[in-house]
């Protein structure tokens, strides 16, 4: 297989196995600048893919290029890491450090200049995530949301070219989520951001590109509008029993919103087709793919 190194992230036939189970199964992807949303149900392989992109995990097979380099080679992996920001799903930071000391430590590990430059960078990212006033608080004294922001600050340090955010908005209040979206959209003007999440609203608000995983395979790779288009004509609202086996939920006004597979028509005479949302499209996608896959 020949590779042309164009995008910052390029995967060809990447498989990662845990024993006999394939968490990633022959994934092909090209990710460019901007925000890519990574969607999938629990166990779909999102975190495994993120860890592979973060050079924390080696693929079992396949070819992976990050920022034009091969993470399988030690020297190239180090180069990648110098330009990488990674917010893991469960950041486990040293509880006895203060927020400032922790980021300073991370800044040293990220090879960020001398002491003064390092401290300037630490102050900058602390302000970006709204934790500057808590810079002298020990990590164990911070709330869950604050720790999440601290982890985000750590990932943002050094203006990484590739920013990997695994469930970044967990624990954030609505105000912080808006702040987070603004921050990421600003970063995405010059970086490649991969956002793995279950929060469809975040994806809808931020992502110009979506990748859906199911069972370790890519089941969608395209623009959000394309995914929504695929759902058009399969989302209905109306009264009465929507029937068994369809994805539906009750709306506040008592009507039902129903998602029907491609082969099915309206769930009943009282149902009319409505404009699908990205969430509808995603649910349809993984539902269809789930049915087809099993």
């Amino acid at each position, binding site marked *: 297989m020949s590779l042309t190194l164009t995008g910052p992230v390029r995967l060809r036939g990447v498989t990662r196995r845990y024993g006999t189970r394939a968490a990633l199964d022959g994934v092909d992807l090209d990710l460019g600048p901007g925000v890519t949303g990574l969607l999938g149900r629990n166990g779909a392989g999102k975190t495994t893919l993120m860890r592979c992109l973060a050079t*924390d995990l080696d693929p079992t097979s396949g070819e992976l290029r990050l920022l034009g380099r091969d993470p399988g080679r030690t020297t190239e992996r*180090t180069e990648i*890491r110098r330009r990488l920001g*990674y917010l893991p799903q469960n950041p486990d*930071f040293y509880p006895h450090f203060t927020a400032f000391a922790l980021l*300073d*430590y*991370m800044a*040293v*590990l990220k090879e960020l200049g001398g002491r003064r430059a390092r401290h300037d960078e630490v102050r900058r990212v602390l302000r970006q995530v709204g934790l500057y006033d808590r810079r002298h608080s020990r990590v164990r004294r911070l709330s869950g949301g604050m720790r999440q922001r601290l982890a985000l600050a750590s990932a943002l340090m050094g203006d990484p070219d590739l920013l990997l955010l695994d469930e970044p908005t967990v624990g954030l209040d609505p105000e912080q989520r808006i702040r987070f979206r603004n921050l990421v959209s600003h970063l995405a003007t010059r970086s490649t951001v991969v956002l793995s999440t279950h929060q469809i609203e975040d994806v809808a608000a931020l992502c110009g590109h979506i990748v859906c995983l199911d069972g370790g395979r890519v089941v969608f790779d395209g623009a959000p509008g394309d995914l929504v288009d695929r759902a058009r004509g399969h989302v209905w609202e109306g009264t009465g029993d929507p029937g068994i086996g369809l994805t539906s939920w009750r709306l506040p006004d008592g009507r039902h919103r129903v998602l029907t597979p491609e082969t099915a028509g309206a769930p009943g005479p009282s149902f009319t087709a409505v404009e699908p949302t990205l969430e509808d499209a995603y649910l349809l996608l993984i539902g269809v793919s789930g049915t087809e896959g099993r």
Partner: protein
Amino acid sequence: MRRTVIFARLTLFNTLRLVRGPFLLPGALLTALYVWVVSNEFSSSVEEWYSILSLIGLLLGAVGFAAVTPSAVREARYPGTSTTPLERTGRTLSVALAALPPLWLLLGAIALFMYTDDPGGPVGIVSPFALPVPFLMVAAGPLASLLLSVWTRSYLPLIIVALCLPVYLVYNGFLLSERFNNAVSRATTAAQQVISPFQNPSVSLAEPTLFSLVYTLLMTGMLTALVVGARRRGRVLVTSTVTAVVLGAGAFGVTVQGNRANPWDRSYADDEVYGVDGPAPCLELDGLTYCPLPGYEPWAENWHSTLSEVLGELPASAREGAPLVWQDALYYDRSLPETDRPVLVLYDDLDPDWAYWQGYVFLDFLRKALGMAISDTGPYGDSFCRSNGQARTPVIAWVVDTVTSRHGLEGLDRADSLAGVLSELTASPIDLEVARALTERPHDEVSAVVHGHWDRIASGEMSTPELARELEIPITDASTEPAPGKSWDAVFPELEKGVYQAWDVDSPPCAPSHRTPA
């Protein structure tokens, strides 16, 4: 280069955190306090200097162990920073290295302080191969902490080490139970064997110190390899394990080879001391010959000044038979000189100004000067004929008492010393009474009689009863057989009863009229 700079920055970062932590500075201060407390016990020999330095190295290693533990546990419990350019191995080793600059600095300062505490520095020669060893012992503490903390991911190793110290102190102070003390003793011996498995641990000998240095380097390297491989998988684990096994095997091989080349009963010539080319020259001072170990020449003047005091109590003719004064090493056997003269052996741990040992040294010196050594019982002539009933027995005791009491030995200590000397001389009841009386008589009175009858006293011809008559000393028990316990208790009522008795009652009696045994 860039990674080296980053590693150095990270190490500095960790060092500053350790300095602000709860263990490093308090531990260092306690160690410095310990040094200050024991500083008045510093001997002026390099062996003692190095021995204390090694102990301090161990203490600082323990401080490093404690100081590094929180950082080591942190790295073990929260490995979430795995996608930084500096990988886990570098981060972990940085934590260990971070403790070393302040600890090494302190050890170096203490070494310098101890070395310069005595004007002119301690006597003796230090092999440069020995110098890095205490510093490596310091490094072993943080490395061991990392290894155990990364494996256990807990503070348990620190707790165990913290408990071991009081257990060791209790073991040294009390007998809790035979089983317990035996277990602690075995553990202590095993630990000592791991730290230094060699049998001639002198700081001066070139070859044994080189073996010791290589062994310590290999053990430190093995520890480092184990740290790198702790809780790792794949290539790192295999590489570090193989490295550790190779280094461990090397350390074992060095131990075997080192002990084979330097068994405990091996004698060393002077040129085996580091930097010495041939036999160390002996010094002639006023007709006495002193053969100090290489580097211990300044002590010869001290020996001479104190031994001259002994001879000063006797006529000049006593100098003719004086033994050669030969210094041996405490940590190895120095090859004996080719000589037909009796040899008085001094060791490198005996401070020449210390009155307590002088009594025994003066006793041996006098007995050898008077030809009482049995030369065919050992190279040093350390066996003597017994002179109970001969006037030289109380006279020797009187000379020893005169010189040692001049050096500050008083009261019970003086009586204790006198009784000890008489015990070694296998004294009879009349010897005890006369000796005690001589020490209470005016010095000049006794001295005049000793000088006036010296030839007969020295040869053993003059008996103790005769000397008693000469000095008009009243006697209650005129027996000349080795004294039973009750005689000692009667002559030395201030001393604990039953402690003293006549030693070496089976040795041959010294023949009167001759300076050799019967």
